[in-house]
């Protein structure tokens, strides 16, 4: 009985504190459990590794904002780095103004890391990678890109004419894009699947928050999407694949978080179990009376 009272009366803030500790402590004393690569992650990796010829184009959709960047930012970094390491061209596109800032941040980071680590294979903005200007209209933009990408955007996000950029050479529409990886935590993923994949047959891979990951398995089975990175774990798996290949130098944001993720999950399970014990005990007592 005392235990039940304790649970009902316990100040939430103690729970908050313990959760914070569960996440901070693993950062200070990391263990680094090994992890398996799941099939949906591997299929995106393999596609970039094996199915795109040198000079090919990967389009990355940065349709997320800071509220989900913890999960999606690491994905953008790994995909862009992977593409650059295979000498592919990378285009960032966004359907929301907030995403433009995210993409800009990724491009800057990836280029810096890359150029610091590869003095003999420098990559340049506008030549190997760029951000297409943000243009409103969501589905209209996705559709228009299937007709003519340069006409859709006119300029890149920095104000340069797209037709002058080397990175855009011989790119007309989706036929010239080898893979698109859409990073988003909202239903905009469907927009890409319905229009870009459905109408124009573009290969789409999904990178999404863990909240939506379970929902998108339908599109993997129906082959509308070629693969998926789900949440921080998906990004961590990809980081590991890249390190194994020897082409990732940046901070492994997702991988270092995995210990904290593990301990927090255990804490959640304990909380649910304790809470339910209390619930059933008090239900029994009420029933007995």
């Amino acid at each position, binding site marked *: 009985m005392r235990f039940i009272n304790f649970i009902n009366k316990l100040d939430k*803030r103690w729970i*908050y504190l313990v*959760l*914070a500790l569960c*996440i*901070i402590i693993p*950062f*200070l004393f990391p263990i680094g459990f090994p992890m398996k690569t799941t099939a949906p992650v591997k299929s995106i990796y393999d596609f970039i590794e094996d199915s795109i010829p040198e000079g090919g184009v990967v389009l990355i959709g940065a349709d997320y904002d800071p*509220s*989900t*960047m*913890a*999960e999606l*930012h690491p994905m953008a970094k790994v995909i862009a780095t992977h593409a650059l390491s295979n000498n592919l061209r990378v285009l960032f596109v966004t359907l929301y*103004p*907030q995403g*433009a*800032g995210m993409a800009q941040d990724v491009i800057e980071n990836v280029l810096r890391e890359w150029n610091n680590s590869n003095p003999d294979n420098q990559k340049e903005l506008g030549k190997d990678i760029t951000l297409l*200007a*943000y*243009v*409103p209209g969501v*589905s*209209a933009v996705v*559709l228009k890109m299937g007709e003519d990408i340069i006409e859709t*955007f*006119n*300029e890149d*996000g920095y*104000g340069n004419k797209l037709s002058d950029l080397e990175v855009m050479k011989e790119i007309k529409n989706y036929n010239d894009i080898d893979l698109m990886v859409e990073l988003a935590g909202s239903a905009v993923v*469907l927009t890409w*699947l*319905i*229009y870009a994949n*459905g*109408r124009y047959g573009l290969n789409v891979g999904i990178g999404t*928050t*863990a*909240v939506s*990951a*379970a*929902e998108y398995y*339908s599109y993997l*089975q*129906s*082959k*509308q999407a070629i693969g998926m990175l*789900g*949440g*921080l*774990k998906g990004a961590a798996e990809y980081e590991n694949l890249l390190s194994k290949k020897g082409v990732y130098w940046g*901070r492994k*944001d997702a991988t*270092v*978080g995995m210990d*904290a*993720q593990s301990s*927090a*999950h255990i804490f*959640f399970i304990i909380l649910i179990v304790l809470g339910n014990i209390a619930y059933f005990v008090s239900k029994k007592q009420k029933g007995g009376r």
Partner: protein
Amino acid sequence: MALSSNFWIWIAAILTLAIYSFLYKDNPFYKFAEYLLVGISIGYGISVYWHNTIITKVFNPLVYDKNFLVLIPLLLGLLMFSRFFKNVAYLSRIPIAFVVGAGTGLSVPSSFEFLFKQVYATMPTKLDIGIIIIVIGVISTLIYFFFSLEHKGFVGRVSRVGITFIMVAFGAAFGYTIMARVSLFIGRIQFLLSDWLGIIK
């Protein structure tokens, strides 16, 4: 690594902590940060719109490329400004009707195709245990959301199967959501410990 000496990192850290103070209790620091965020994000949106849209899609084509075809949509768009004046605000309904009408026109055939693809993927040519689960799961879930028959007898039993599938799916989503929320917090801790305090790499 040591404590950051970057002024902007400090700003970011202070704002982060101001928001976390809400966990203790609601307070003016939190409110300040929250409202500041509303203002800044709209201001940011306006700026990106200005440079990446108004300039690239409207100003440049009109002034430099002399492309007067953009005038019609431009006029339609300008009607949107009528919202700022109460007595003519209804004019903004025309561009809204255009955007919504044309948008739905574009979406109907594609949405149907999308739906068909999902049904098509549920028509296998071979059978194994996984496929049987998929087919039974899809059919029973659909029956659960079928409202023209009372959930009694056979239909009732099938819809029970359906709700069981739904619960497993929700459970998976639930587990994944825990993961997502924890990840967001991990992201912030990483910022505080590494970029700001410099305790970890």
